């Protein structure tokens, strides 16, 4: 027992030492709230989610260029590792959000309505050339006649097809949705599915609206209509009747593009992000891209992200100068130069020549007619419920209409609680 006592005493002493040490450390690194750096520059914070190493380098390059041109401003780049919107919303509530941050078009209506974003129109000067942006992409960040953000880049969906598989099966690249269905049938064999599909609203939204249906009407979910079911039916036909379509986890992949890269799907609808991914991960695959097969008319999805300004920012002038540079012709050119993202400015796209790129051409072509992934403040609610139920219809566990009705009812209930 006595040894125990001595040990304990020592233990307690070391505990005290550590506490004192930590206390001194803590007071040493107490928060300096001032946003001026030692050399008198104004510090502004830019928040975003992480990208792959090449993207991170490109962004840092762009920021350095900006700092060189604006020696009075220092930019702190801050990465939110996960659950971006949750963290961002929490910080906005607490008044500690960054001066400038990324915002996905999908989430933009909620934040624009909440009034936490700074309208940017009054800062815009003539030479910024707003007309230069692809119009639908810019409109995603406009609300009640005000512009809250400028899109930094975008991607549409295009048809990615495995050249060898198509050749082997003697199939032409499908131009219409019917041709796609036929091609998928022929391409399905030996554990390979003709068409890899992500059963998610973000990917299927344009199909859902292809027969005249509306996913949302007046900020209420309305996707249980006959028209929406008709639009989506072809996906279910392929999965359940033709057995020519599957979702990634049915073949042990995590994403549509992984499924495609592994050679388990001959065709998928994917975006620009897939091109560098395939180059890195599956360099041997020989593939091509084409515009999404038409259903009556051309259509596809467009996903876009903007830089927006925090309304509570203490350095709005500096923050604007950063946005102006990042979404201006020069900054955007640096950022999109490697083709990791597509430029939202027509002039930059032209200069970089992506429209003539054999792989990116189909993606760029989609920009003019794409449906932007955005539909009012309650699309996130609709999406959660849609995905939850559509998946079970996709697996053949309940009829599509019934699944959609359930999802719609629940979504509208939740929207009601919101109002």
């Amino acid at each position, binding site marked *: 027992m006595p040894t125990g006592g001595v040990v304990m005493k020592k233990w307690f002493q070391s505990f005290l030492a550590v506490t004192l040490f930590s206390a001194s450390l803590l007071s040493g690194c107490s928060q300096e709230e001032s946003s001026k750096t030692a050399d008198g520059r104004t510090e502004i914070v830019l928040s975003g989610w992480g990208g792959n190493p090449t993207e991170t380098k490109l962004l840092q390059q762009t920021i350095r260029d900006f700092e060189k041109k604006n020696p009075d401003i220092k930019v702190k780049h801050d990465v939110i590792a996960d659950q971006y919107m949750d963290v961002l919303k929490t910080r906005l509530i607490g008044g500690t959000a960054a001066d400038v941050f990324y915002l996905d078009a999908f989430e933009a209506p909620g934040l624009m309505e909440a009034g936490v974003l700074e309208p940017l129109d009054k800062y815009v000067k003539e030479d910024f050339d707003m007309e230069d942006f692809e119009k639908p992409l810019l409109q995603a960040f406009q609300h009640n006649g005000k512009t809250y953000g400028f899109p930094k880049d975008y991607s549409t969906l295009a048809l990615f097809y495995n050249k060898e598989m198509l050749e082997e099966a003697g199939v032409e690249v499908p131009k219409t949705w019917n041709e796609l269905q036929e091609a998928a049938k022929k391409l399905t064999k030996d554990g390979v599915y003709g068409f890899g599909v992500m059963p998610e609203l973000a990917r299927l939204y344009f199909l859902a609206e292809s027969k005249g249906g509306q996913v949302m009407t007046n900020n209420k979910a309305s996707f249980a209509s006959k028209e929406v079911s008709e639009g989506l039916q072809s996906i279910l036909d392929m999965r359940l009747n033709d057995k020519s379509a599957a979702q990634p986890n049915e073949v042990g992949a995590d994403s549509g593009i992984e499924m495609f890269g592994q050679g388990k799907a001959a065709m998928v609808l994917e975006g620009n992000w897939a091109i560098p991914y395939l180059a890195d991960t599956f360099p041997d695959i020989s593939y091509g891209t084409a515009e999404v097969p038409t259903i009556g008319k051309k259509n596809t999805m467009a996903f876009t992200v903007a830089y927006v300004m925090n309304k509570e920012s203490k350095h709005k002038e500096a923050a604007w100068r950063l946005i102006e540079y990042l979404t201006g012709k020069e900054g955007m050119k640096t950022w999109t130069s490697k083709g990791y993202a597509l430029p939202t400015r027509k002039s930059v796209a032209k200069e970089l020549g992506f429209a003539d790129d054999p792989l990116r051409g189909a993606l760029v072509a989609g920009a003019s007619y794409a449906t932007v992934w955005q539909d009012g403040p309650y699309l996130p*609610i609709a999406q*959660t419920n849609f*995905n939850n139920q559509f*998946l079970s219809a996709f697996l053949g566990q309940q009829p599509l209409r019934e699944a959609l009705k359930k999802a719609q009812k629940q979504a509208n209930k939740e929207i009601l609680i*919101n109002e």
Partner: protein
Amino acid sequence: MKKERKKYTLYEIGQGYTFMLPAIFVLAVFIIAPILYAIFLSFHKVELLGGPSYDFRGLDNFVKLMEDDRAKIALWNTIKYVVIVVPAQTLLALVLAATLNAGLKGEKFFRIVYFLPTLTSSAVLTLIFMWMYNQNGLINKLLGMIGLPGYNWLGDPNVALPAIMIMNIWSTAPFFMTIYLAALQDIPDSVYEAAKIDGANFWQKFWYVTVPQLKPVTSFVVIMGLIGTFQLFDQSYIFSKGTGGPNNSTLTVVLLIYQYAFKNLGTMGYAAAMALVLAIVILIATLLQRKFSKEETLH
């Protein structure tokens, strides 16, 4: 000494609260205060973004809760989960601890192996399991080797919840085993000696000596198990990408609370109401547990 005995109660008060002081401080500032705020929220329609606005709605949120089908499904899923996982992990933990404590050769090796899941972060474990549950993953391959059909563990609503259950029993049983082991070491040898003299074999000793001796700890293990399983969130969030699908099969109460609290900030008050109801459900379950194992008195 004598003087102090007079003010015995005052001394005791001081003494008790000296011991409790750090706990009370942290509880008050970082736990009770936020909970009080959450209670306040549950009676309001809240908009926190863009300058908080609170609109008093009385019991509105609670009434809506009663009509919420998804809340019912979530509660039902959670209860299924609790009823299977808590007994399974408690029993497994107890058996493993007793076996490890039996003084067999090589016990040290097994002890180290068994601790592994406890020492690994749940995020890492979830990753490892997701990868094993993959359609082409290890588990299906192993099942195939012994001639059983594989499942789409992550995508099939019929097996998604059991897949999470298996993983959770596997990963939390060793945690409780550790606690049982520590407790087993506190059981005085004399008790076993007496049983041995009475001619008890290993299982009899386990059942008639070990189990009763461990009652306070078992009570802890069960209550912690109840609380932990009722609050299942991480795995179902990761498995279903936050939707709780397919067809609500992995929707748990806390996942639903999370959806209301964060996916749309206008439903924060509703989320808080749901959290309170969940707390009451857990409280009832805990009280039932204490009724059943009435051995333990507040002392």
